[in-house]
């Protein structure tokens, strides 16, 4: 299936989602991410592989990007959840896709996004007693080296 077809299917099923302008990424309200995820896991979409979870700090919001693929159907979809810096809670997908376990821990570690329902939400790359969330744009550390001049 082509990305726009997939987007259409999801949109027809869930009216609350919308497509990001210019791309085929689907923006899902954070309340319904679990619902949408459940749906795309099963046929007809059959996204059996949660390939990648990442965060993007847009200053005014933090995006959590989920990249799904289907091994059987040879197609993929990207879901996005926008979170405001005040409320960084989102439902964990680790019950549905086991791969989400470590990927969500990484996003938690680097962005401070809290995945509610995650079985073991600890830091993963940084030491367990680390302070702050390094990949946020406002994170500062005396050891940082400034951007090289161009």
């Amino acid at each position, binding site marked *: 299936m082509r990305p726009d077809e997939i987007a259409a299917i999801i949109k027809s099923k869930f009216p609350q989602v919308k497509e990001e302008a*210019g*791309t085929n990424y689907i923006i899902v309200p954070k309340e319904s991410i679990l619902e949408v995820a459940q749906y795309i896991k099963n046929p007809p979409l059959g996204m*059996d*592989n*949660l*390939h*990648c979870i*990442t965060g*993007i*700090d847009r200053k005014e919001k933090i995006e959590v*990007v989920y*990249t799904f693929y289907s*091994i059987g159907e*040879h197609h993929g979809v*990207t879901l996005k959840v926008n979170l405001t810096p005040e409320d960084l809670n989102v439902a964990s997908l680790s019950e549905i*896709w*086991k*791969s989400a*376990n*470590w*990927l969500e821990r*990484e996003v938690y570690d*680097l962005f401070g996004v809290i995945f509610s329902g995650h079985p073991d939400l600890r*830091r*993963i*790359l*940084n*030491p367990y007693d680390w302070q702050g969330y*390094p*990949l946020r744009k406002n994170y500062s550390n005396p050891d940082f*080296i*400034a*951007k*090289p001049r*161009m």
Partner: protein
Amino acid sequence: MDATQTKEMYTEEFLINMGPQHPSTHGVLSLELKLDGETIRNCTPHIGYLHRSMEKIAENRTFTQFIPFTDRLDYVASMNNNLGYVMAVEKLLNLEISERAKYIRVIIAELNRIASHLIATGTFAQDLGAFATPLFYCFREREKIVEIFDQICGNRLTYNYMRIGGVLADLSGEIIEKIKEFIEYMRPKVDDYDELITYNVIFLARSKHIGVLSKEMAINYSVTGPNLRGSGVKWDLRKDEPYLVYDKLEFDIPVGENGDAWDRYKVRIEEMRQSLRIIEQAIESLPQGEVTVRVGRILKPSASETYFRTENPRGELGFYIVGDGSVYPYRLKIRSPSFSNLAVLPELVKGIKVADIVCVLGSFDVLMGEIDR
């Protein structure tokens, strides 16, 4: 102190820290094992000892400046990392590269795949206690590849050969002759490995039916690469989502049957044969022409984002790049294959012996450089 209670006898569980300094954790991986005698009751991996904040560094480097950092991700398959990164950037820039560069990239990537699988094979046999001999044999073969790489880019480990828009330099006739020689040299050696290691009785006894990863579990855990194929899933990006010129080349995707440690190992051995086939065909049909497209010194992709993944020796390496119209990536996420492959380990090792955890870990061929990033 909790103990497993049996009818009358009970044995004390004890905790053992395997790593971060241990000969067979393939780097600075630390496994916290809870043992009952020699049987593993629970396993908790601790990673991050090699965390170098690659993703944060990327936000402070230009697109071109970041290429050398990708060498240090999966340092035994640097060429493939370079390739994945530059192709992601090219996708962001909508850049089409020359035909000859595509073929060269395929040749180099496949050579590095062989080099990487050689290390996987050697260290796996070493983990199973075949002390150093298979490792030395594998390094002897890898040396030939490293020499070729040394000639084309001047480095033996951190190659920095791929460029946005092509490759660093053209392959000279001399190097192509060397690669052809290597193919002739390597073919019988792979058969040798089959004879020496693959069907050795002890080797079979140690690795068959150990760490069985089912198809469903492999997909659910997003395990990729030879480990996924070892579980019997016929999935290879080079075939299923062809990039470069893989769709013009003929090769098979080897798959395993049971998803045990031996299958994963065997898939790697077969992939070496397939890679040799690919290189041979690519050299035969190598077109003439330029190897680089002029892209200018300053790259300023538009404010957009892209995700691109390639088939690395260890699985699918993905780069999620977000540009904001400046010369720096706004955000660069590295989706490393070993990270997801390692996540399945605790599930597989429950109830097996300490000796087997080494076998399972070795068969997954994880590399801490790209797990910790």
